């Protein structure tokens, strides 16, 4: 992965982060809403090789840790996103990939999103982060999964096109 490619990808991640923090965060959606940054990072991770996916997950995690809304220690989201992106790329990359077709990709992103939230819930008590009541956790997990399932098919073609544009432009230079 060239320096130029890392630079362009970082700018794209930053733009998605700003959209998440400034526009999507305006709406208090039922069931907790969704994170466009997580959907974006997971969809790019599926399309990438393992090492690129790991770097992407690391970058997305750093941005999430930089968000003022994050309650855990700095680095918690970096670690979670790194592991989730690597795992999803491990399962999804190559000809003999685990997810067949677009529908499989959509479900893998929903499962990846759920895995990320579960990893946060598991690591939170170890790092001294309060997570709320059982009903609240359950409704958030359910709500975010439904939102991700609803939104991923809409944004996936855009993210795929963006990926193609960035990585084709990067490989030509």
């Amino acid at each position, binding site marked *: 992965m060239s320096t130029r490619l890392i630079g362009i990808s970082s700018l794209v991640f930053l733009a998605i982060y*700003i959209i*998440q*923090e*400034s*526009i999507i*965060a*305006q*709406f*208090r959606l039922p069931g*907790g*809403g969704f*994170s466009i940054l*997580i959907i974006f990072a997971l969809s790019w991770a599926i399309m990438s*090789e*393992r*090492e690129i996916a*790991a*770097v992407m997950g*690391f970058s997305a*995690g750093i941005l*999430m*840790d*930089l*968000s*003022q*809304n*994050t*309650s*855990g*220690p*700095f*680095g*918690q*989201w*970096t*670690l979670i996103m*790194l*592991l989730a992106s*690597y795992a999803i790329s491990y399962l999804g990359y190559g000809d003999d990939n685990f997810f067949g077709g677009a529908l499989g990709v959509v479900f893998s992103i929903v499962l990846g999103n759920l895995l*990320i*939230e579960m990893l*946060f*819930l598991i690591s*939170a008590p170890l*790092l*001294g*982060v*309060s*997570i*709320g*009541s059982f*009903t*609240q*956790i359950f409704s*958030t997990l359910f*709500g*975010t999964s439904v939102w991700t399932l609803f939104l991923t098919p809409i944004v996936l073609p855009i993210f795929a096109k963006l990926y193609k544009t960035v990585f084709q432009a990067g490989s030509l230079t």
Partner: protein
Amino acid sequence: MSKGGQSRTRLLLVILIVTSLFLVTLDLRGVKLLDSLKQGMQNVVSPFQRTANSALSPVKGFFSDISLLGRSGSQIEKLEKENAALKLELLERQDADVQIDQLKNILDLAGTAGYKIVNAKVISQGSYQSFAQTVTIGSGSNAGIAQNMTVLSEYGIAGIVKEVYPNSALIQLASDPAFRIGVRIVNSQQIGFLTGRGERSAVLQLLDNSTDINEGDILMSRGSIANRPFVPGVPVGYITTVDNSAGTIAQSATVRYYTDFSKLSVLAVVVGGPSTNPGDALVPQKPRPIPTPTVTVFVTPTPTPSN
């Protein structure tokens, strides 16, 4: 992938994991290495949040209305466009009216208790991923806001100032699972502490197990040393259920906050506490039943004309 490529990927993964763990360790040990970076990032994002808030403010509840538009016919389309524009204008007006109402109530509340406040608009809601309950307001240290100040809504406690930036501040809502506040029960003066649960209800734990608590009992904030993080006498909520299970060390109850955290648009930060404790001056009035007017209609029968 070749064997060399595989080992390179593994090495990269290990380096990144170690870096993440290193960052976590630094943060947990209190080394605020990346605090300035976090503050810089918020300074970058804050203008975007402010702009998006102004632009999207009337549209927030408009999606359901807009989905009804889309029928064919130029006349209908024209009328619908006009209608949509009027609706948008009306929504803007309604949005402003709601904010004015909230502001008026906050000023009444703060004025009665003698709190010195700074008002601010909510410019962004918190994200769900961390299961935290936060909002961002559009005023910061430039307006005199500092960390650990009490934040009020029109009905009472809303939260505390968690982080401050020059032109914005992060508010930890009272519904946040990490939120704790010392409270007293209005009638019995029993004291305890309240813990957020991620929703509008919270858990009250009393320090003394001998006193009775009842449903409907009102809770007020106890106040902290030098009024930070909590000023005394702020309405917090009322008891909805009392946990009477045998064998518990401390008596506990479920409390419903007065503040509806899903409808916050204007908040007030208490920058100066009262000179004297306001006591129970802010205890909310019980709602009075509004009498239903009875309408009596007198009818005089008239004979039906016969042909």
